């Protein structure tokens, strides 16, 4: 194929994934966490698309579209939570939300 090897795309995907992981783990604002989560999902999508290209199988793209749909759904619910929390005047800090503390 033209351009870089699939391996390069996979490295980019890996980088995106780990960057998103860092964001999820290190940020306290839930919105930023959700955004980082999107980055991780996109990294996974890129890997899927890359492999789909490498193997010539369309299943990877199907999977990627499904991931996109599910990511959208999850963002809906997550942002709905954020809005609900904001309406109840709860501070938007994931560290404060520890009612499930054991």
């Amino acid at each position: 194929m033209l351009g870089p090897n699939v391996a390069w795309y996979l490295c980019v995907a890996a980088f995106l994934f780990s960057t998103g992981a860092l964001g999820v783990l290190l940020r306290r604002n839930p919105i930023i966490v959700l955004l980082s989560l999107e980055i991780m999902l996109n990294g996974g999508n890129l890997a899927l698309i890359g492999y789909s290209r490498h193997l010539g199988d369309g299943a990877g793209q199907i999977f990627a579209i499904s991931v996109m749909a599910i990511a959208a759904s999850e963002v809906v619910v997550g942002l709905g939570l954020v809005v609900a929390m904001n309406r109840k005047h709860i501070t938007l800090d994931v560290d404060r939300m520890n009612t499930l503390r054991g």
Partner: protein
Amino acid sequence: MTAGAWICLLSPLVGALVITLAGTRISRRTAAYVSTLSTAVAFAGALTAFAGLLGEQPHERHHISTAWTWIEGGSYQSGLSVLVDPLSVMMMLIVSGVGALIVAYSIGYMDGDNEERRYFAYMSLFVFSMLLLVEGGNLVLLLAGWGMVGLSSYLLIGFWHERPSAIAAAKKAFVMNAIGDATMALALFTVIQKTGSLSFGALGSVHGSTAANLIALGLLGGAVAKSAQLPLHTWLPDAMEGPTPVSALIHAATMVTAGVYLIVRTHVIFEQAPTVQDVAAGLGAATLLFAGLIALVQVDIKRVIAYSTMSQIGYMFLGVGVGSYANGMFHLMTHAFFKALLFLAAGIIIHSLAAEQDIRKMGGLKRMLPKTYWAFLIGSLALVGIFPFAGFFSKDSILAAAMDRGTYGYILWVAGLIGTFLTGLYTFRLFFIVFGGEPSPFAREHFHALRRDVVGISMAVPVAILAVLSVVGGWIQWAPFWHPIEDWLHVVAEPLVSPKDWQEWTSSALALALGSLGIGAAWLFYGARRRPVPRLAFAQRTLEHKFYVDELYDAVFYRPSSAFARALTAWVERPLILGSGREIGDDTRDLGGWFARLQTGLLRTYALAIASSLAVLAIVFVAVK
């Protein structure tokens, strides 16, 4: 005749059971009668056994009757058996006879006590235990009886359990007896190991001097503890906390003489360990001097007689220690008579003076208790060994036997003679203080005579019988002329010594002289009050403190043990055992809490956990692939 022995053994047990099971359904007096009857029946049984043996040839006089096999283990076997031979029959007669008299006396002495039934149940239990000890056909039953008399002694010393001093004395007696029981048990273990059996005959087949020495030492330990010889003697004076009949029966006539019986019964092993036998004789001699000296300063009437008991048993130990078994047993018999007499007479005095036992408050009781005066006089003369009373015949034979034992025997002989002087001194010191002179103010105030009903009769008659026995009981054997006791016991235990006639006469004369000297000295100091009692402050203090033995034992044994026990409680029991229970609970809870810390509730922590696990899994996955 074995039937007689069985009746003798079981009758007191039946009596005890009847009293225990009947409880409050029978009156207190009935319980007393039941107990006395059972002991009298036991005496009848003993007489039957005795009569049966009399009709046989000496070498036939050995019957073992086994009820059933009691313990069986491997090749070891012990049966529930009674042994009827001259020695056991002699002891049976003494125990049940004197016992019956004392139990009868108790009817009056213990009248009115709230727990009379318990007393008589315990007394019957004791008589049973003592008979088991002397009738036991093997060492196991002897040990069983041994332990049970210790138990009965504990129960009866602490009979008035509201008194803390009585409880303490009972515990002391039991603990010291337990030491002896332990050494005896060790000796019996050695016997089993060497011979595989615990019959009396097995003792004869122990070879090897080390084993024999160990066994003899262990048995001697038990005898010393039970008979209150040095060094395990401190419990006997304290045991006077019990009622007077208990002191008479257990701590004068029977239980404390069990040690002597033991040595005679197991004389075979002692003869194989002559050193130990010499030690026994030496302990006896030391004890008789020791106790005699202490008795000089005692002010409690029962304690004087208790130390006198200790001293006389020292004589018995001396006798069997030098190998004169029959004489030791003879002295045991006469001692039972006059010592029980003295105790029971003292009981009458105590009863009449509203339970007062301090002789300094007594005085001039001759006028108030004339018959008791004569009884006490007879008992005292018998104790000192004045002809023709009982003690003369038995004690002097022991001294003569000691002469026949070489140099060591002569040392013992001298000790015995000094003891005779001391005996005269302390006995008549007691007699003159209590009975002589003018009646004391206390006596005048509190005296009340014996009632002339069952109470009074039950107390007077046994005393009278014992007084008669103390007069004539010794005449059964006068060594140079006739010696049926020695012949009777010859088949059981042959004496190791046979004193010659000149030794007998010398001993008798010297003993008589020294005894009379003691009486005279007592008269000087205490009777006619001619001379003041010599006051040596240091000696007085030492004797009053009983040579500080109690303090020594307290410092050497009691303090370190209780400190050790306290240390163990603080260091081991509380932290380790009690604390471990609590700590296991606490630790489990802490562990749970530690794990709960993983549940932080923080989103990011969980995410981190997932990310880290993913990283690790990725490595694993790659490595495996």
